[in-house]
């Protein structure tokens, strides 16, 4: 099934998700067209990861709908997941694999895999291809995960708190990877973070989520303009404080 060229990459409509008594997402609607860097910001537990897991199809939309490249990620996991490069905060790569084995394994799923790009990133990140994943530091694991997510040039790069708990050098690598990805025309990056200065550095568009609700979603420049050029930190604190009223 071909995707219409002007179809939004992500189209979420009235998505609500509950875990027991807790409502993780409340009637969330979000449409992201192709191209650009979208920052998803919010405090811990705000619902960022829940939203990303819906985009990946790891959670089924109980209420509302989720379309990625015009497809339902639960009904068509192959069509959606083959086009997403994903790096999670958990870095749950198989610990028993060697880096080279992981690259070979991942390559098999993505016809667009570039050996040259993988080799180049391996050298840039200074990761030993023969090392086992379990022997890598958290930062090295993040780099390996990023490499696997980038080397097939996916149309959508999805980063869930990618720099959480990492040192400034690895965070710089991740931001550089985001910049590089958007250098290729038409590709889209959605990354979640609670490190707002990072988001401010690279995002074109910011979506703010507070207690499961989207309280703000607009181009960064517009947000700054409407808030008298305040920092994203200040805006976030303001919005979070009025969240209950908004919700």
């Amino acid at each position, binding site marked *: 099934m071909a995707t219409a060229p002007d179809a939004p990459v992500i189209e979420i409509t009235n998505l609500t998700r509950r875990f027991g008594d807790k409502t993780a997402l409340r009637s969330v609607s979000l449409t992201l067209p192709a191209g650009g860097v979208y920052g998803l910001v919010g405090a811990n537990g705000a619902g960022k990861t829940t939203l990303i897991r819906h985009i*990946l*199809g*790891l*959670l*089924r939309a109980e209420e509302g709908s989720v379309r990625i490249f015009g497809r339902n990620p*639960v*009904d068509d*996991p*192959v069509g*959606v*997941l*083959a086009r*997403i490069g*994903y790096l*999670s905060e*958990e870095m*749950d*790569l*198989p*610990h*028993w*694999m*060697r880096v*080279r*084995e992981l690259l*070979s*394994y991942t*390559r*098999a*799923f*993505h016809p667009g895999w570039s050996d040259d790009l993988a080799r180049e990133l391996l050298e840039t990140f200074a990761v*030993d*291809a*023969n*090392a*086992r994943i379990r*022997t890598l530091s958290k930062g090295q694991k993040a780099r390996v995960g990023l490499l696997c997510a980038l080397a097939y040039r996916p149309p959508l790069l999805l980063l869930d708190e990618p720099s959480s708990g990492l040192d400034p050098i690895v965070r710089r690598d991740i931001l550089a990877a985001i910049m590089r990805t958007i250098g290729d025309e038409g590709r889209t990056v959605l990354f979640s973070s609670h490190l707002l200065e990072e988001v401010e550095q690279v995002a074109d568009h910011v979506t703010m989520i507070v207690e499961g609700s989207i309280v703000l979603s607009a181009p960064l420049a517009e947000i700054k303009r409407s808030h008298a050029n305040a920092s994203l930190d200040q805006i976030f604190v303001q919005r979070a404080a009025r969240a209950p009223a908004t919700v």
Partner: protein
Amino acid sequence: MNLAGAALGREFLTRHRWGFAAIAAYVVALAAWMQFSAAPMIATVTPGELPDLSLHFIFTILVPTTCVAFYFVAVFSFGLSGDISARESMYPRRLFTLPLPSSALAAWPMIYGSAAMALLWLAVFVVGIRPSGVAAPALWPALFLPAVVAWMQAITWQSYPLPGMRLIVAVVWLAVIDATVLLSLHFQASQTFMVALLAPQLPLAYLVARNGVARARRGDIAAWGTGAATSRPVEERRFESPTQAQGWYEWQRHGRVLPVWVAILLTMELALLFLDDTPTIVFRLLVAAVLTPPVMAVFVAPALASTSSDARDAFGLAAFDATRPMTSAALVGARLRMALQSTLAAWGVAALMIPAALLLSGRWSLVAEKLSETIAYVGGLRAGVIALLLAVFLVATTWRALVGSLYIGMSGRRWLIRGSPLIALVLIIALGMTADWVLGSGRAQKVIWEGFFITLFALASIKAGASIAAFRRLHQQRLVADQRLLLLAAVWCAAVLLVYGTLAWLAETPLIPRSVLMFMAILAIPLARPALAPSALARNRHR
């Protein structure tokens, strides 16, 4: 008690409370059963020989106690949460940061493990073995079982220069302990000798364990050569397709488990061939050896069915696995193929070890004689076909045991996954006891024989109904293409007809109705449970 010891003890108790509760319940149930059951525990007694235990004893005491002993080994060596084939120590790293000396880190789990094993034996002895009238020594087994768990702890907490070496060391060392005890029994060693032999095992194992924990804590990993094992260049793999890559992934994760366990068990079982040349004992050992792969498959199946060892939620699915761009059916297909490869590898191990043990122990002539008698009785062709069928049946049974509970593990439902081994054990015990009762009751045999046809019909109907429901679900959820579903159904029908035809040719007698053979063929070829696995995985993957 020392606070650190209490904390470690509480951790064992909290993490494995349901397992321990089930064991306590078993002991209470055994005590109650022994009060009310009149079933004989000893089948025959021959003066000067070990008593021939009844099925009742085997299934109420021997099988559960052995399972519990294996469980204790896994729990107290931390073997349930580690990679047994890795070079690194399996002692949990999180405990290394506790403000405790390595001697305490090694000693406390060892004390708990040994105490649990000794208590298990004493409890089973007091409530089960002694009332049964089976003459078993009380003291030295209470040392033997703790020695086994202590050595397993020492072996698992050591680091090794090569991957997989831990398994080989464990097999060899257990075989040595096993053989030593069996030889002592064979030569009717005294109780004092056995105690003197076993008592030093605990401090010796402790020294080895302490050394392993201390080295692991320092980050020392044994290496042969100049650290080549960690930086050895790995050959570049090129997978032709996602299916091939996923097959490789599955094999690396779970494929070796069954062949390794079969090798461990067969080593211990076949060692007994060297001790006794009584034909009955030799053939019993052979039957046990041949049944080892399917029986082990039952125990390995939960590990094979687990969706991820890396997931934060041990029963859930790690994002790495869940985000593979493959359909849930394709992921299940890779697991089913890996199970087949693992089965064939396990039988390859058995096919090498059993003849080798027969030849080396000099028992081959006994088997050859029996084979010649069988061929003379049924004819060469028929004997060949029976042997081939038996081989196919055993391989198929092993595979079936491996994949039968796949849908349980893939469902990610904690209560189902945790409860299923217990249910399986209870069913095995119940079946064993029922078989024992049926063998001793002519009336029961008559009832079963008369109701045989209707029972088979009912079972085949249940299976057919469950299969139709599973296929309908696959169709409705669009997990498998309709053409593929039709193909699967056609292959299953062809396999059923093949088995039916072969059975009809073999059992050419009017005593057995053809319909019975057809029901048996329907029940023999798996369909419903493997068909449930993709739906279970899809539910776990898209929660």
